[in-house]
C-alpha cells in the first residue's frame, strides 16, 4: 500500500464531523450503526439535508424557463452549482460540466453519442478487467450497435492493471479507453495519468469512471488532461439521482445529443431542430433540480473539510483495517495493489461472503457482500464474491476494531 501521503496523523475532528451526519446516531438491532458501505452510497450531512429542505421550502421552480422570480432564483442556484462542480474538478469551462442522472447515465451518454459520431465497424474500445458493470455494458451495447469490439486490459494477482499489455493494445482501431480511476471492488488506484499520456500519444481519448475516486482523492481534470470523467452525487455525500459528466469542450461539441426534448434545443420546427450549445444540449427535459443544486452543497461541505485531509485520514483507516483484518485466520484480502483508496475487500477460506455479511449486519455493521457488479473481476480471482468494507471520513478506528471482532466471531460461527 502506498505510504506517500502518510505525513502525519490526521487533524480532522472526527467526533465533531460525525455530528454532521444524523444517520450515524441511529441504531440497528439495538446496536449503534457502523456504516462501512460507503462505496455503495455515502451518508448525507445536515448541510445537504437542510439544502434539500430549503430548496423545496424556498426555491422550487423549473429552471431556464420562467421569467418569474422563483424560476430565476432556482436557475441561479442550479448554475451556481455547476460552477462549483467545475471548480471542484478544475474544468477549463463551466459548460464542460453536464448534469446527468448518475455515473451510469453519464457513461451511457458518452457510449451513445461518442459511438454514434466516432465509432464504426472494425473499431475497438478498451476497458479493463476490473470495471463495474456500468463501465462494461454500455460499451458492449455500443459495440454491438456499431459492429465494433471491446478489448480488455488484464489485471495481475494484486488487482493492478497489466500496463505492458495495455500498451500493446493501443493501435489505430482504438477509438476510446474507458477505465475506472479507483476500483469499486478492490480500491486499486489505477495509473490513470500514465494511461492518458499513452492514449494521447495515439490520439485516443480517455474516459475515467471516477465514481469511487472524487470523494477520496483530489481530482484535477486539466492536470490529468482527461477527455471525459464521470461520477455520482450520492457517493460524494450528495443526493441520489444526480451525476456529472465532465467532457472536454472539443469532444462534447462534436457529439450528437443523447436525448431530445425541452431545454436542449435552439429552435424546433416540424421539419428540423437545431440544438442548443453546451451544456444544455445534453440536458434534455426538466433536470433533477433539487439534486443538482444540493450536489453543490455536498461539494462545498467536503471542500470545507478538505480533500487532502480526508484522503490522509481515510488512508490511515485503510492501513489500520488492513492490519486488524489480516491477522484473522484464513482471511485473504482481494486487491493488494501498491496504490489503494477507500476499499478493503476480503474473503475467508471456506466461508461464503454472504454469511459473513448477514452476521455482521446483526451486529449493526453494514458491509457489502457479493460480486459488487464486477462479475468479470470475480471470475479473474475465481471467487463468488467478497466482503467489501468501504470507508468514509466519518468512520473511526474504534469501528474497525468492532468490525474485526465481528468478523472473528462470524468466522467462528461459520466454520
Amino acid at each position: 500500500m502506498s505510504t506517500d501521503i502518510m505525513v502525519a496523523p490526521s487533524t480532522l475532528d472526527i467526533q465533531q464531523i460525525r455530528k454532521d451526519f444524523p444517520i450515524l446516531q441511529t441504531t440497528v438491532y439495538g446496536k449503534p450503526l457502523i456504516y462501512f458501505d460507503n462505496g455503495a452510497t455515502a451518508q448525507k450531512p445536515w448541510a445537504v439535508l437542510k439544502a434539500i429542505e430549503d430548496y423545496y421550502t424556498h426555491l422550487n421552480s423549473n429552471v431556464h424557463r420562467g421569467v418569474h422570480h422563483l424560476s430565476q432564483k432556482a436557475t441561479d442556484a442550479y448554475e451556481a452549482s455547476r460552477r462549483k462542480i467545475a471548480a471542484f474538478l478544475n474544468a477549463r469551462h463551466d459548460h464542460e460540466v453536464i448534469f446527468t442522472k448518475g455515473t451510469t447515465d453519464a457513461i451511457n451518454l458518452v457510449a451513445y453519442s461518442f459511438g454514434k459520431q466516432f465509432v464504426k465497424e472494425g473499431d475497438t474500445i478498451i476497458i479493463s478487467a476490473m470495471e463495474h458493470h456500468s463501465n462494461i455494458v454500455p460499451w458492449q451495447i455500443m459495440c454491438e450497435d456499431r459492429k465494433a469490439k471491446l478489448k480488455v486490459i488484464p489485471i495481475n494477482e494484486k488487482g493492478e492493471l497489466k500496463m505492458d499489455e495495455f500498451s500493446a493494445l493501443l493501435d489505430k482501431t482504438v477509438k476510446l479507453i474507458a477505465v475506472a480511476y479507483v476500483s469499486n471492488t478492490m480500491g486499486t488506484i489505477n495509473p490513470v495519468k500514465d494511461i492518458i499520456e499513452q492514449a494521447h500519444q495515439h490520439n485516443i481519448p480517455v474516459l475515467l469512471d471516477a465514481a469511487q475516486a472524487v470523494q477520496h482523492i483530489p481530482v484535477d481534470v486539466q492536470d490529468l488532461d482527461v477527455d471525459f470523467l464521470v461520477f455520482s452525487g450520492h457517493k460524494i455525500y450528495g443526493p441520489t439521482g444526480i451525476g456529472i459528466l465532465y467532457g472536454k469542450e472539443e469532444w462534447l461539441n462534436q457529439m450528437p445529443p443523447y436525448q431530445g426534448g425541452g431545454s436542449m434545443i435552439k429552435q424546433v420546427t416540424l421539419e428540423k431542430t437545431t440544438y442548443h450549445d453546451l451544456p444544455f444540449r445534453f440536458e434534455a427535459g426538466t433536470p433533477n433540480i433539487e439534486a443538482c443544486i444540493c450536489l453543490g452543497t455536498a461539494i462545498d461541505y467536503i471542500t470545507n473539510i478538505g480533500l487532502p485531509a480526508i484522503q490522509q485520514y481515510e488512508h490511515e483507516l485503510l492501513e489500520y483495517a488492513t492490519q486488524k483484518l489480516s491477522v484473522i485466520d484464513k482471511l485473504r484480502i482481494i486487491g493488494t495493489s501498491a496504490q489503494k483508496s477507500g476499499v478493503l475487500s476480503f474473503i475467508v477460506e471456506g466461508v461464503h461472503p454472504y454469511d459473513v455479511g448477514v452476521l455482521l449486519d446483526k451486529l449493526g455493521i453494514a458491509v457489502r457482500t457479493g460480486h459488487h457488479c464486477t462479475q468479470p473481476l470475480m471470475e479473474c480471482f475465481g471467487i463468488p464474491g467478497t466482503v467489501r468494507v468501504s470507508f468514509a471520513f466519518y468512520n473511526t478506528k474504534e469501528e474497525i476494531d468492532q468490525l474485526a471482532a465481528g468478523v472473528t466471531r462470524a468466522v467462528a460461527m461459520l466454520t
Partner: protein
Amino acid sequence: MTINEIQDELIDEFSMFGDWMEKYEYIIQLGKELPLIKEEYKQPENLIRGCQAQVWLHADLQDGRVHFTADSDAIITKGLVSMVVRVLSGHTPEEIINSELYFVDKIGLREHLSVTRSNGLLAMIKQMKIYALAHQAKAN
C-alpha cells in the same frame, strides 16, 4: 404433520432464542443438517441464481407427494432453505400450492424474503410451488 403444524413447530423452536446471534447459530446448524441434493441434480437447470448465494433445488414426486432436496453455497442460505424444505417437503402438490408460509415473518426473517433483486426465499418458495404445479399437472 400439516404444513401449518410444521411452521408452528419452527416458530416455537425459534422462540427459545434471546438474540439474533443465537437464532443464526441455530439456522447455521439447520443448514449443516440439510439433506443434500444428489450431485447429479446439481445442474444449472436446478439453480436459483442470485446476486449473492446460489441455491440448487430438486423435486421428486413419490406416492403423490413432492419431496424436495436442496443445497446452497452459503450456510445461512442453506439453513433458511432447510426450513422451507422441512415445511413443504412430503406434502401433496395441492397442499404446497395452497400453502401460506407465515413462519418466515413470525421468526423475523423477512429481510431474507428478498435480500437482493433476484434472490432470497421468495424466489425459492416460488420455485417450489412451480415444481408442485408441474407435478400436479403431470399427475392429472
